[in-house]
């Protein structure tokens, strides 16, 4: 009886946004009279950071500090339509809508500034710290606050913008399945190392190394939270979770978190993540979306690592100790494969 180690890997891609498109999102951006901006959305922040990522996109596009932008969501009376927070669409779809709205608002802001400074609008740039100045002449400058006051009380302009992003709905050919499912894809590869106890069938995680290509990490901390949390979910899906442990027999459903198993702090493992950025041509600053795909590579990588450790193929999820042990016994004992 022994604890045997093995390594397995998987690689994959993931489509961004609703399959076939046809899933619009809108955004409104406006400034108050002191040059502070509000982004109005109806998108949902599930904890993934919807408010924060759209806030950064808006600030970057406007050319103002992120502290000057606040994201208000989701009130159906004030926020314009959004399809919803799913299908890894938030950053890509809503981000693009916010970018479009912010670009329009920036246009008005720059025109108002040009009028105040009595220069051509094409000669102006933002410094990202709340000022607009003449290119090459930083002393000829006006704060966004003074621009907003002037626009509201002297010029009678609205520093505001509307944005929508829509990938037009694709047809599906009934006979061949020809279609345009998505405009861009995120990518991943993950290596999992496990230790399998051939006496109990228990699988312990040892470590994971991964590479994710996400277009652009708009906020590396939010990306990290998704990838770390998603990998946890991947371990959980691979080794622990199901409300129907004897599927397709529906009996023995769980009623609480004592009966519904998920990995605790002692069941996870170190995970070294690398992020690659190949910008999507139609992503906001090239961004795709890490939300969904991060759980996917973990499951097959673990199954493949178990094969490497003890020589059994686990083709049914979740891979419980019972299933592993039965497979090892059916095979007449663990059969470790070549170490990697």
């Amino acid at each position, binding site marked *: 009886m022994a604890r045997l180690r093995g390594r397995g890997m998987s690689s994959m891609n*993931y*489509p961004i946004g609703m399959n076939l498109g046809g899933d619009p999102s809108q955004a409104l951006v406006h400034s108050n009279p002191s040059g502070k901006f509000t982004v109005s959305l109806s998108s949902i922040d599930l904890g993934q950071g919807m408010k924060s990522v759209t806030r950064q996109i808006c600030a970057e596009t406007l050319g103002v500090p992120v502290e000057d932008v606040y994201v208000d969501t989701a009130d159906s009376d004030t926020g314009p339509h959004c399809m919803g927070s799913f299908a890894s669409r938030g950053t890509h779809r809503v981000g693009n809508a916010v970018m479009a709205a912010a670009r329009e608002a920036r246009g008005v802001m720059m025109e108002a500034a040009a009028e105040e400074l009595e220069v051509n609008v094409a000669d102006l740039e933002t410094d990202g710290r709340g000022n607009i100045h003449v290119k090459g002449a930083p002393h000829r400058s006006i704060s966004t606050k003074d621009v907003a006051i002037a626009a509201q009380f002297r010029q009678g302009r609205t520093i505001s913008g509307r944005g929508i992003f829509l990938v037009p709905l694709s047809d599906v050919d*009934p006979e061949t399945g020809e279609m345009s499912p998505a405009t861009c894809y995120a990518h991943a590869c993950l290596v999992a190392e496990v230790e399998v106890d051939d006496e109990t069938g228990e699988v312990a995680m040892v470590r994971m190394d*991964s590479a994710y290509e996400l277009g652009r990490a708009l906020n590396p901390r939010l990306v990290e939270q998704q990838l770390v949390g998603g990998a946890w979910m991947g371990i959980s899906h691979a080794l622990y979770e199901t*409300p*129907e442990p004897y599927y397709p027999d529906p009996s023995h459903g769980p009623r609480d978190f004592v009966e519904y198993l998920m990995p605790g702090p002692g069941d996870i493992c170190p995970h070294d993540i690398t992020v690659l950025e190949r910008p999507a041509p139609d992503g906001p600053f090239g961004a795709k979306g890490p939300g969904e795909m991060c759980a996917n590579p973990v*499951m097959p990588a673990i199954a493949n690592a178990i094969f490497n450790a003890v020589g059994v*193929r686990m083709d049914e999820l979740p891979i419980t100790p019972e299933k592993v042990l039965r497979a090892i016994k059916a095979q007449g004992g663990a059969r470790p494969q070549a170490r990697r």
Partner: protein
Amino acid sequence: MLELRKDIFADERDDNLKEIGKPTQRQDMLGHVTATSVYFNDHKLQGMLHLKVLRSAQSHARIRRIDLSEAERSPGVRRIIRGADVPRNLNTLLSLINFGKDDEPALAVDKVRYKGEPIVAVVADSEREAFEAVAKIRVDYEPLPTVFDVEEALKPGAPVINETYPKNTFTYHDIYDHQKIRFGDVERGFAAADHILEQRYQMSPIEHAPTETNGSIAAPDTNGRYVVYTSTQALFFSLDTCAKILDVPSNKLHFIGGTVGGGFGGKVDTVTEPLSILGAMLTGRPVRYMIGREEEMLYCAPRGAERIFIKDGVSRDGRILARQFRCLFDSGAYTRLSSYAAVKCAAHLPGPYTIPNVYAEVYCVFTNRVPATAMRGFGVTAVDFAIECQMDKLAHLVGMDPMEFRLINAYRDGDMKAHRREAKNTALIECVQVAAEKAKWPMRDEFKRMSSLKDVGAPRAATPAPQPARESILVNRPAGQQRTVYDRPAPPPPEPIRPTPQPPLSSPPAAAPSHGAIRFSSVFGGRRR
């Protein structure tokens, strides 16, 4: 630990940005860590009532009679709602995007199709009183035969679960019981292959398990409007669904949400809002309908189970020549969103690899279980599990390193995908290379030099001439025989299987058809002919 590899694809990016790419603290961080962020359930409204539903005790049954007499007299009960009280008591979620037929009632009327299906809603002064009244409702059921297995549900003569779809399958393009992918000619690909591998995979249902369970609070507002605080993942999707079911103009409803305690796909179905709004309409009081943890785990939509059959033909130099794929999505008793996932699954095939011949059939199948719904990776997660386990087996079969095997088959810019669109902006190869480097997984130099931008297009994806003298491949074998070689009870010889040395990439293997192909199938196991 997270590392950014800015050196890769650097020429495709402008990294001279001020706010993008910065690890800025979340806008809502302070609220979250000080427990002052407002979630839907933080709205304690004056005079608020509580709604609970009676759920079916049967998986499939005709409802003969519902006796409410005792429940109506139960203390604290303000209103009992039945299916007949729901203005449009039949809906399908994706009718909002004109996909599928209305097939699910808010409250069951003549029949229940899964254990836990809501039949009657009780609105009472307190949750406890609502539960007590629910317990006093008597339902007389006439049990019907049940089906829980997707393959059983597809058999002729299987009990009809959802009368909207009498064949127990969702209808695609008005004519088909599945979504197809047809690309190249798989039979030609199999004929040209040195090995065939046919396998079966199964993913079980999964509970979303968000910190905050599903729920909503609806309250009468001025001017005949209703304000709704909700945990929905899709504000207007839920609003428009409610407007349809309750048959009111959408501007009568004012939805407020946006701060949600996790969703993972489990908060799109809009199961609480129609009833809490209807409760508010019928009582003139705020009504809260919060689903408890046990209810959510047992009776609210999980990620659906999927059964997947893959048959691949691979050449001995490691190229996948054909992939045949059959997937059965277990939708449960109603469509919800599974019909959409099946098309997304078809679009995802054959995975991020360039395979010249692909054939797929993806079914959305009805069974007598809790309806399935979206979950993180919807339509793709189980498919990726199956494909990536299959890739590992194929690499083993041809004696190749699994990383290098993937790199040989990885899609690149300009490759044609099975849904007949050119691949672009790909980065699978670079991810594999970086992960290998990170994990200190040995990789030969020629593989380290590969790129998503090089060696693209048709020549790599050509189908070679067929191998002579091979028996035709069995397809559509009965499900019971779809066993993998790996779980056969009688094990082959006990010595460890060592990968055989592989030929270098630069010199293609000599055509040696004399010893025939290795077949792996559930019927015959692995053997050489």
